[in-house]
């Protein structure tokens, strides 16, 4: 066990990137005071199909980062868990990666790489479970013409702290789709970020989060249109219930001067199910060229719709079940995009459970 070196800047909470995050609850991940374990908890859940490998190797980072925790991870850990899908391999069934051996008294600094060769097609589902203190630098590289559906499930128990960047580098004509689901943990802070490095790529960042009493979940996107003719879509839906449930959604989209023909739209919708919860939603579109196909954003925050509840109840459905139906319905649009019935039903049941626990 060692201690994170402290020759990095430590966020104070006044920085734009940290202004919402409850630093005190990060268990020392941000300031280097957490003791570091050498556990490596990510494993493949089943035998891997042909053309797919999962190895530990030393890899240089794919892209620079200005996130302090990511810098600390890179300073301390050189080995990367690397899931590689070879060129031209098409895999129908999802590849599951899951967590073993979590702990709260020491931190795991995890580096993960998912790489797809040219024209490879795959779905990767990462299950984050248990109670753990985990900081993760997860990088995804999509070679030209490849296509990845990346599902990231934060199904942690109640004490977990997870801070991560999920960064995708999208090459020519590659298709990246991510579905980020956060339904568990004490503090979860994820930076789903995308960078286009050649024209013709597309990125769809979808997500749902459900924070109940006391939980803090932050999702801070950054989509960098640094090349012409790329397309991006962001759609995150969140629900909150219970005292001091707090969510943050930041949607930074940058269309650089060279990025002509960009097509982008971002959307965040929040459902406040009880009083005492707080949803921050900040879309932020920066446009440096007028030669684009489209750019827009929308953000809404609402409550249970009395008319919907009345309609359901007027058919004999109890208030509790009516609420459950409405919340499931709210999340359904995104959850079904996962395309795996078993995972979808498990998440819906977790959502039912969270709703019940919050007494909403």
């Amino acid at each position, binding site marked *: 066990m060692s201690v994170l070196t402290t020759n990095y800047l430590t966020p104070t909470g006044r920085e734009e990137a940290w202004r919402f995050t409850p630093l005190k609850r990060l268990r020392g991940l941000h300031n280097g005071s957490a003791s570091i374990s050498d556990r490596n908890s990510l494993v493949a859940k089943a035998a891997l199909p042909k053309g797919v490998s999962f190895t530990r190797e030393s890899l240089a980072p794919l892209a620079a980062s200005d996130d302090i925790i990511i810098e600390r991870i890179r300073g301390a850990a050189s080995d990367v868990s690397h899931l590689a899908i070879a060129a031209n391999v098409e895999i129908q069934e999802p590849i599951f990666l899951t967590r073993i051996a979590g702990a709260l008294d020491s931190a795991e600094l995890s580096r993960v790489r998912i790489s797809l060769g040219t024209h490879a097609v795959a779905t990767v589902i990462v299950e984050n479970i248990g109670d753990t203190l985990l900081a993760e630098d997860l990088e995804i590289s999509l070679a030209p013409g490849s296509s990845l559906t990346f599902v990231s499930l934060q199904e942690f128990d109640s004490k977990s702290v997870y801070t991560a960047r999920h960064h995708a580098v999208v090459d020519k004509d590659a298709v990246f789709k991510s579905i980020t689901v956060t339904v568990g943990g004490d503090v979860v802070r994820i930076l789903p970020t995308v960078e286009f490095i050649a024209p013709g790529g597309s990125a769809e960042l979808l997500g749902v989060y459900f924070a109940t009493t006391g939980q803090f979940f932050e999702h801070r996107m950054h989509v960098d249109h640094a090349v012409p003719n790329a397309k991006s879509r962001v759609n995150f839906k969140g629900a909150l219930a219970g005292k001091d449930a707090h969510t943050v959604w930041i949607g930074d989209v940058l269309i650089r001067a060279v990025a002509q023909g960009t097509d982008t739209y971002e959307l965040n919708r929040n459902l406040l199910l009880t009083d005492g919860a707080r949803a921050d939603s900040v879309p932020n579109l920066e446009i440096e060229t007028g030669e684009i196909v489209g750019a827009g954003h929308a953000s809404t925050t609402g409550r249970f719709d*009395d*008319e*919907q509840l*009345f*309609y*359901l*109840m*007027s*058919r*004999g*459905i*109890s*208030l509790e*079940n*009516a609420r459950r*139906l*409405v919340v*499931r*319905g*709210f*999340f*359904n*649009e995104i959850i079904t995009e996962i395309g795996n019935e078993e995972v979808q039903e498990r998440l819906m049941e977790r959502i039912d459970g969270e709703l019940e626990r919050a007494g909403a």
Partner: protein
Amino acid sequence: MSVLEIRGLQVSVNTENGTVEILKGVDLTIKSGETHAIMGPNGSGKSTLAYSIAGHPKYTITGGSVTLDGADVLDMTVDERAKAGLFLAMQYPVEVPGVSVSNFLRTAATALRGEAPKLRTWVAEVKGAMEALNMDPAFAARNVNEGFSGGEKKRHEIMQLELLKPKMAILDETDSGLDVDALRIVSEGVNRAKANNDLGVLLITHYTRILKYIKPDFVHVFANGKIVEEGGPDLADKLEANGYADYVSK
């Protein structure tokens, strides 16, 4: 044999400019198998009556009573009223995003019957109910009322009426927005429910056309928050010819 009894019902809504009284003492008794038509000008309070009986939270009951077979309806939650045997086909059925018709119907049937319907017979039952109303079976997979046309929403309401088998149904302008064929199909659905379940019907309408299909035993004229005249089927024809001028000026 069931009886829905409305006595001296007074209802108000809260608005920015204070409380507005809408129902000013409604008296009405509906028995199983009877069909009562209510006709009256826009804004006279017909939907308010329908919603108040069903328990919509927007309305405050300030006086009177509603009982079903002696049980105090006003004391029941919305779902309890449905379980007691009341059904409201809404003038504007509500869209519920992300909730499929099949999931909705099954949840409702489970609640009303006290146990989940057996899967095999249930699928056939829903299919039959949809076919009876000329609804494409594809509607089962769609979200409740989402993107339905006006007429499709109304068919969906009557489909539920047949499937859920209440004792008393309030049909709030179910005929509005229906084409001539749909009007006949929907009316036949109501008549089947009447024949099969001895359903009592409170039918709110602006047009005598539907009364050619669903024969009312009584016609009530509703104006300014209460019933101002009662009669047989011929009263409807009189209203169609003369309008409401006589009642509104009173």
